[in-house]
């Protein structure tokens, strides 16, 4: 390799630049988390100080747990996200299998039709979606959110999974056919297990916008029983805006699950983004 060897000065500058931006990226989150464990006066007196035993306080968390229904919001968010991902993956993989495996009239057209939703945001149809949900009696139900998020996630899922399905060996499927497997068994028993890595990538991509969405919970399911964690913390923080302890604690509670999931899935996610962009 005839690479020019990087001088230590240059390497140092690269690290300096990256560390500075890392600080910019992490500092606001760090600041929120440390201050959520401090008492009110030290939040203002010394915002950058760590929560030492003398200023340690959980009063914010007590308010959040007493006043807000955060367990319910978590549960709602979890149900909506998990069920939507399940349907996106199942329906998406089935459609992707049909599109990649069989030649039929309108195949390409169908693929383009499904790809339309990658670029056109579903939000633009909100007026009629709300109308439809009112007519179907689904307003203020988690079902409404699940339906919307399934529709929202499908285009990208079909697109990514179709690409992956094409790499599954044809010989394997034909061997299955010779052994008398039905098309359904070929899909569920041969193909699905093989595309599991792609499904994981799609699941992570689908999950983030659903978990973080504020628009549809606000419009379709704003009632107390159906608030998601994103809407719940938005409303809670709006009400307690002068209670800094409570606001910081609510923010920390909203960050932690994302942080934990991210630390588990970051490898998958980053590999997914970098692999997807290569195409």
């Amino acid at each position, binding site marked *: 390799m005839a*690479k*020019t060897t990087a001088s230590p000065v240059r390497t140092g500058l690269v690290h300096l630049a*990256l560390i500075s931006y*890392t600080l910019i990226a992490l500092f606001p989150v760090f600041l929120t988390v440390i201050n959520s464990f401090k008492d009110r006066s030290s939040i203002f007196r010394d915002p950058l100080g760590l929560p030492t035993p003398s200023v340690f306080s959980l009063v914010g968390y007590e308010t959040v747990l007493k006043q807000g229904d955060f367990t319910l919001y978590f549960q709602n968010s979890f149900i909506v996200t998990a069920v939507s991902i399940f349907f996106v993956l199942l329906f998406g993989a089935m459609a992707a299998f049909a599109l990649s495996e*069989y030649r039929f009239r309108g195949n390409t057209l169908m693929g383009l039709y499904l790809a339309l939703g990658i670029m056109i945001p579903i939000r633009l149809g909100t007026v*009629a979606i709300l109308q439809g949900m009112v007519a179907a009696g689904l307003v203020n139900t988690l079902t409404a959110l699940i339906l919307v998020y399934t529709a929202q996630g499908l285009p990208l899922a079909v697109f990514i999974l179709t690409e992956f399905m094409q790499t599954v060996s044809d010989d394997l499927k034909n061997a299955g056919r010779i052994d008398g497997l039905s098309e359904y068994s070929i899909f569920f028993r041969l193909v699905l297990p093989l595309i599991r890595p792609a499904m994981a990538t799609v699941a992570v991509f689908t999950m983030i916008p659903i*978990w973080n969405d504020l628009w549809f919970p606000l419009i379709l399911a704003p009632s107390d029983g159906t608030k998601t964690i994103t809407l719940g913390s938005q409303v809670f923080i709006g009400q307690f805006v002068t209670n800094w302890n409570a606001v910081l604690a609510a923010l920390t509670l909203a960050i932690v699950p994302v942080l934990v999931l*991210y630390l588990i899935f970051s490898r998958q996610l980053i590999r997914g983004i970098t692999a997807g*962009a*290569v195409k």
Partner: protein
Amino acid sequence: MSTVEQASADRGNDKRPWRWHILVFLTPALLVYTAVMILPLIETLRLSLFNVKDGQSVFVGFDNFAVLFGDPRWAASFWNALKNNFIFFIIHMVVQNPIGVALAALLSVPKLRFGAFYRTALFLPTLLSFVIVGFIWKLILSPIWGVSPFLLDLVGLKSLFSPWLGKPGSALIAVSLISVWQYVGIPMMLIYAAMLNIPDEVLEAAECDGVTGWSQFWKIKLPLILPSIGIISILTFVGNFNAFDLVYTVQGALAGPDGATDILGTLLYRTFFGFQLQIGDKSMGATIATVMFLIILSGVCLYLFAIQRRMRRYQF
């Protein structure tokens, strides 16, 4: 690949009259997608041509658009929102993309240590919801807390501090920069991937010709990552003209101060859903959604037909 196509073509040619399983595989996805996404979208476009007169829905042609663009009650806030939305987009393009490219270039330095750590840390803000990001920055920029003046004091710039989010002149820029802070991870990752994808031979050839460092970045790498910059631009465009959550969280539905941060998303929300004394208006909501649809569609078409075709030349 040709064997695959041949095999599936063979299967397509056999004379079974109707292959039910294709229908079974396709139906669930098509049904949900069509019923919840496509039909409402079409219905919204249709509703923009109707309005309520004497309790009856009547066809009014393009009257709603004429009202939106010209009627004094609507036009001012619409053009204001459109203008703000363009500023919002331009700030993203000139701040987010260069930072993203710079970070990607730094990350793709060969044999960089802690690369995985930097990638993970830099991408974290992108995963947080707008609600979290909005409130965190609202607290940090708040003059009550005093974190920002304190930090500016450390670098001797305390006199520069002002309640940026509360001033009409700076609020939109502040909100845009918060959004940039959150989303810079996406251009960074996509361009990082594109840079990894540049063949070593190309870079080695450049080095043999004495093209290194900065000139290598400008003359070799940048042209090769242009397609990715195109993709990022269109993603940013679609995302920005569809944005709502951050402005709603930071500045409320009225997008204050004095409409300074109002963008099409918040205008749509207020119009369609109503806010405080204003009653929700379905027809005008649909009209604004249609305008947003047309803006996004023209952006996507421009990208697909003009930009992408031109960029193909740089690809291998």
